């Protein structure tokens, strides 16, 4: 699965993308965020408060309880500020 990070999420983590194997027991976007939080360091900081983040699966906005079943690309980013 490809993970993508944008804006300050990308900046704090020091990377914009990574390929991961989804660990056993991780079935939803929320569980994936918790898994990333458990890495510690910058990941713990970024994923400490999910309310500050938005998530997309396969380039569509999702809520945190969305299953990862068909996910090939998951992105985490702050609320958008374009326009």
């Amino acid at each position, binding site marked *: 699965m490809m993970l993508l990070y944008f804006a300050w999420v990308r900046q704090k983590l020091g990377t914009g993308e990574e390929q991961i194997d989804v660990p056993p027991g991780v079935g939803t976007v929320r569980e994936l965020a918790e898994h990333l939080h458990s890495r510690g360091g910058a990941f713990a900081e970024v994923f400490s408060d999910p309310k500050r983040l938005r998530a*997309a699966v396969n380039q569509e906005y999702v809520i945190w309880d969305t299953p990862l079943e068909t996910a090939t690309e998951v992105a985490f980013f702050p609320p958008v500020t*374009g326009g």
Partner: protein
Amino acid sequence: MKIRVQREDFDLNAEVNALKRAFPAVGAIVAFAGVVRGSDRLSSLTLEHYPGMTEREIARHMEEAIARWPLLGVTVIHRIGELRPGDNIVLVAAAAEHRRTAFEATEFLMDYLKTRAPFWKHEAREGKSEWIDARDSDEAALTRWRED
């Protein structure tokens, strides 16, 4: 329907003329240009986006606008990269037979671009730089489009 995400500037007149040429029945074109505000000693504004999802989100909301209003054509151009005060950021142009349709569709698309299209602004002023926070007022602007 035309969607562009690009580093280069755009020419508002050229886009309006393209809509006129494409749709002889046009009676009204509303074109909105968002510009980098030259305030508080801003030196530059840098826009990042999510390639792929950006175009999909814009297309989704364009299709919604086309379903809601009798539009002839719509153009959205959003710039990315480093911009300076006075530079163009975004263009939304809607062509219709009548003005109200064009006004409403343009506002609808801007309200959704602000709150759903995955772009992020990073600003530099006086040697400091920071990511801009999302505004509650932009989110609140969406509520009027949801009253069915």
